[in-house]
Every structure is written in structure tokens, then in C-alpha cells.
């Protein structure tokens, strides 16, 4: 199985490089592109602290979505919060020693995995049954849901049905840090799970998953409402003044 191990090692190096460089590029692009006008959706906080609080509510609670559509909010929040717990649970494969909070979160990670799959299923059902959402769905919108559901289901299957050698998996990933490729168990479910995760990492910076960094740069959410108090001007707009 040396070939498989080598393939997956390369795959994960590649995926990690794509994910990191892609995201760094996009975040730099967002950060460097000026926002020439004050456009917070009002009522908006007037201070920086207020903006941070608003952003936290958006990131943690999906406040705007809650006001917009309760069903999408329930499923969307279940999925994201579930994924968050799952990610925390999975950290144990990537750090040694495992931090105490990560040990505590282990059982919740399993519930998170279930919530994630249920949430995704709910979101997918909407794409078929709500005519407006069906109209705006491209093939990629379905595929990304399929990808995430498959990742979730293959993970849960490994937990409950076909166990795999998690110690070996951890050894494999810790080995990658030191460019020391250790054998990866060859259970088909595990290979599928890992393949899909790598695909997700590669797709991330080139797809709508950019909503994750995007939210933080959204001028309608991250600007303080203080245009009369402080003059806001972009560099290219300042140039107009010197002409």
C-alpha cells in the first residue's frame, strides 16, 4: 500500500498548499481593495467596538439570516455549528499532546457530525422543493452539498460501523509535518473520507466557500456608521481631488 500512502501524502501537501495560498491571495485581495464609500447597512453601530459585536453576532448566530429565513437559518446554523464541533474533535488527529479542551469536546463532536449531516440534508431539500431556491441553484451548488454530506456520512460510518485505525491515521498526519511519510490504513471508507476532504480544501479558495473570509470584509457589515464625524476617503478617490 506504499503507493496509496504516497498518493495521499502528496494529495494533502498539494491540498494544503492550494488552500493556504489561495486563501492568502483572496484575503490580501479583499484587504487591499479599497472601500471608497461608507455603506454600512443601517442602523449600524457607530463605534469599532460596536462593529466587532455586530460581526460576532453574524459569525456566531447568523443574525441577518435569522431575520431573513427561519428554515435556512435552522439548517444552516445546525450545519455550521456541527462542522465547528467536528473540526474541534478532529484536532486530536493533528496535535500531540491533545489539549484538554479538545479532550472535553470529543463526545460533542459526534453530535456535531450528526447535526451537520441533518443540516446539510435540510439545505439540500430546499434546493429541490422551494421554487425560488431551485431557480438559483447551479450544478456546483448541489455538488458542494453532496461533497459535504459524503464527508459527514463517511466520517459517521467510520465511527459507528466500520472502524478504522485512528492511531495510524494520527501517525500519518503527524509524520507529514516532518516530511516523514508513515503508512496510512487502507480502509476504503477512510480513503474516500480523506479524498473528499482534500477536494474540499482544494475547492475552497475557488468557490462560494469564500463566503467565510468574505463576511469579514463585507462593507455593509464591517463599517462603523460615522461618516459625518470622520472623513472617509480611498486613495484613488484622493487622487481625483488633486487633479
Amino acid at each position: 500500500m506504499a503507493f496509496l500512502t504516497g498518493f495521499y501524502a502528496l494529495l494533502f501537501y498539494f491540498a494544503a498548499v492550494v488552500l493556504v495560498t489561495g486563501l492568502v491571495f483572496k484575503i490580501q485581495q479583499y484587504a487591499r481593495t479599497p472601500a471608497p464609500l461608507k455603506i454600512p447597512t443601517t442602523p449600524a453601530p457607530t463605534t469599532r467596538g460596536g462593529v466587532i459585536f455586530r460581526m460576532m453576532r453574524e459569525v456566531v448566530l447568523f443574525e441577518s439570516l435569522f431575520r431573513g429565513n427561519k428554515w435556512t437559518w435552522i439548517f444552516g446554523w445546525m450545519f455550521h455549528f456541527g462542522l465547528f464541533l467536528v473540526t474541534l474533535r478532529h484536532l486530536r488527529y493533528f496535535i500531540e499532546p491533545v489539549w484538554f479542551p479538545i479532550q472535553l469536546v470529543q463526545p460533542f463532536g459526534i453530535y456535531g457530525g450528526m447535526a451537520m449531516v441533518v443540516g446539510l440534508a435540510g439545505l439540500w431539500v430546499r434546493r429541490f422543493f422551494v421554487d425560488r431556491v431551485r431557480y438559483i441553484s447551479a450544478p456546483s451548488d448541489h455538488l458542494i452539498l453532496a461533497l459535504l454530506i459524503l464527508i459527514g456520512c463517511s466520517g459517521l460510518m467510520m465511527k459507528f460501523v466500520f472502524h478504522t485505525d485512528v492511531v495510524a491515521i494520527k501517525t500519518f498526519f503527524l509524520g507529514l509535518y516532518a516530511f516523514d511519510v508513515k503508512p496510512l490504513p487502507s480502509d476504503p471508507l477512510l480513503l474516500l473520507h480523506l479524498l473528499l476532504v482534500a477536494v474540499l480544501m482544494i475547492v475552497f479558495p475557488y468557490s462560494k466557500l469564500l463566503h467565510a473570509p468574505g463576511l469579514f470584509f463585507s462593507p455593509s457589515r464591517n463599517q462603523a456608521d460615522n461618516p459625518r464625524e470622520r472623513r472617509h476617503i480611498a486613495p484613488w478617490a484622493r487622487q481625483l481631488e488633486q487633479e
Partner: protein
Amino acid sequence: MAKATFEVPALTQYTEIPAVTPDAMAHSAPFVAKADFQKPLGFPGGLVDDWQTTAIAKMRELLGRYRSLQVYLDSCVKCGACTDKCHYYLGTKDPKNMPVGRQDLMRKVYRRYFTLAGRFFPKLVGAEDFTKEVLDDWYSYYHQCSQCRRCSVFCPYGIDTAEISMAAREIMDSIGVGQKYCNEIIGKVYKIGNNLGLPGPALEDTLEGLEEDVYDETGVKVRYPIDEEGAEILLVTPSADFFAEPHVDGLIGYGKVFHEAGVTWTLSSHASEAANFGMFIGSYANMRRVAQRIREAAIQLKVKRIVFGECGHAWRVAYSFLNTLAGPWDFLDPRYPVPQHICEFTFDLIQQGRLTFDKSENDDKVLTYHDSCNVARASRMGDTPGGQFEIPRAIIRATCNHFYDMDEDTIRDRTFCCGGGGGLLTDDLMELRVKGAKPRLDALNNVMQEKGVTHMAAICAICKSQFTKVLPYYGMEMDQIVSLHQLVSNAIVLTGQGDGDLEDEDETDEAA
């Protein structure tokens, strides 16, 4: 009821979400600007030969200039939260009037030319070449967006379709496909000073007439000055306020408030327009040029403060952008915000107890209040967030005995656009305007039935003109829309008013 060549929707108790009906409004498009209207704004006169390349280059430039555009085109996950929020979708059933549907007209082009996925797998991610058909769709549907920002309230990432339709119009202008209504008007502002093309002498006549009317009515000499150097306050107001109903009743009200405040004020014939249609067409350069007139007028007239009259998008440009476009305002009195809204000015006086009202003057009306979209979601009044909702309502309560709000889902930051904002207030878009007004009028009709509301107050020239025109299509009366400062004007008791026989005369007038 006004005659319509299209089917006017029936009002419903609550606005229902219609089933998707593709291309229901594909036939709607405003008149295209001729070369005469394009050139003064610095745009090509007609569709340029290499329009596709030029448009993509322009899009690249805008992506580099506007973080909003870049982030919004990338971030949409097609969750659908916005799909039932646009009044034009609710009124027309056309899925390209769903905010995401409208954004996708640009997003598919963006993906095709600017993203890896769209370049290699266009079908998979819904990317498309920028063809003439797509351009036609742009022209049609980016002129079915009133840039009211209602979608941005509910989007989990705050994606604001207004930003995208502004960019689309800027791109179309850059290849010579402009909209006649907006571009002709901006030209008039450059040439004459206001949207309506009213020259200085006509304004002077009108204002003199107002002074006489107010004197006849109240016996008090209230002044309506223009171009008076050294006045304390420069009033910048939409030009509709000079003659259109019910706008002019608002202007009369501003004058009475200034009179009671004991401040000197003036209008300017150079900046005789608060509106700034440069925003509607997404042109920073034109928006800035229009805004600079206000700075020039303030300097020329040596004023200390700037106050804006009732106008929605004008207040957005004034409150949110004026400091950016025409500031800094360090030569004005630092004790006051620049600019101030007339409602802030009136409200301050009310709080100080400096205005006397006879509320019974408005007893012939039961009021509701329409939050204008740009005031509600793109600006503020007063010191605290949400002041833009509370201050106008406080003024109505101070001047009227009977006031009821419309359904909570349709007011404050969830308010529905009147259907005529964003450069769509033109007769060649009448069908769109009538259908787009439905959600607002559903809610109005509801309070008319349940609370006996007779009139709706607004603080936006576009809202007032739009409702005046559209209400009759739904079997309502055009004068059911009133200016907020018209209510102030009715109720205000001027110092020295009613000391003579005048009040008696008034009463005989009314009896007759």
C-alpha cells in the same frame, strides 16, 4: 382609477410570495440615452465597437476599486434568504428580480472572465460569456432595481444588490449604453443647477409666491430667501420642493421652522438640487461633481451650516458620502453635524420646546409613515442608530393626534421601497413602478382598513412623486401622500399669528 396597459396586481392583506414566473418582466427597459445625454457625463454616445472587451476591462477596474463588488460577487452561497425580499420580485414574479437572480446576471460574467472555475467549467458554476443577450438582460434588469438595500438587511454576508446594479450601470455607461432618464437629469444639473431644469429667476418667482401665500394664510412674514450671502444656513432641497404637490407644502414647512428658530437661511441657485443621480448610475466621478456644487455654494454664500430637505437618496449621499465627496467641512460651524437633516433640525427645536403646535390642524387626517429606503437603510439621523426611524415619527406625534404604524415587517429597516427609487421614476417604466409599489401599498391598505388611516407621510421627493402617480392605479387618491413638513406646516403656530382677524377669515374660507 388610472388607465393601465398592463395588469395591475390586486392588493392582498399580506404580501404573498409569488411562484417563480421566468421572464415576466423581460420586456421592461427604460429609454436609452442618446449621444446628447451621454457626452456631458463623459460617456460614449452609443454602443462602442469593441464593447465586450471594454466592458470586461471596466469590470476589472471596478473590481479593483470597490471592495464591495469584489467581495459580493465571490461570497454568495445561493442560500435564498433574499429571494422573497425585493418588492420588484414580489410585484412582478420575475425570478431575475430576486436579488440573487439580479446579482447572478453579473456574477455569471464575473465567473467566466475572472475566476478559475468559470474559465474551465462554466456550465458547472453557471458562468456565461458576456453576449449581447446578456447585455440586454443587464439593461433590462439592472433598471428594475431601485437600489433600496432591503436585500442587504437579510443577506448573511450583507451582500447589497444596489452595489452590483450601480456597478452594472457604470459598466454599461462606459460602453455607451446609458439610461436616458438619469443621464439627461445629471446633464441638467450641470447646465442649469437642478434636476427639473428650473433656472434661477423661476426659483425666485416661486419663492416670492410662497412668501405671499404664507403671509396671506398666517399674517406672518415668513421668508423664503435664495442666494443671500452671509445667511447662517444653506438649505439644499430636491427641486420638486419648489413646485410639485405635496413637496412644496414641505418647503413651506421648512421655512416656517427656520422662521420660528430665528435663524437666517438661504437656498442657492447654484446648488438648487439635493438629489444626486450620480449615485444611481454608480459613477463616483459624476456623483462627486454633483456634490461639489454644494461645497461651492456653501463657500460662495459664506454659510455656517448645511441643512438638507426631505429627500431619500439625497440624504444618503449627504449623510454618508458628502464628507467623502466634497469635504472636509472645516470652514463650517463645528458645533453642528455637516450636513443636518431638516428633521433633525425640527426635532431639536421640538425637544427644546421652541415650537408651538396646534395638533388639531391635522385632525382631518389619520397618518401613517413610510420609511424611505435610503434614509432607513443607508443613513442615520441624530446621535443614535435608528434615529432615522424615531425622529420623523416623533415629529409626526408632535404635530398630529392620529398616527398608526404599518405592519412591523414593512417599516423601519424592513421598509419596502416606494417602487420608484434608484433612477426608475420615469414614465417609460410605469408597469414596473406600479407593480413594485404593491408590497408597500398592501401594508398601507391594511392600516387604511384596520385603523382608518387616510394619509401616508414621507420624507423623500421620489417617494412622494411615485405615490402621487401610482396610488390611483390601486384605486387610492393621489393626495393621500403628504410631506412630513407639510404636517409641521399645518400645525405650527407662528409667533404673532392669529393676533388679528385672520383666523376668522380662515374659518369662513373653510366653511365656504
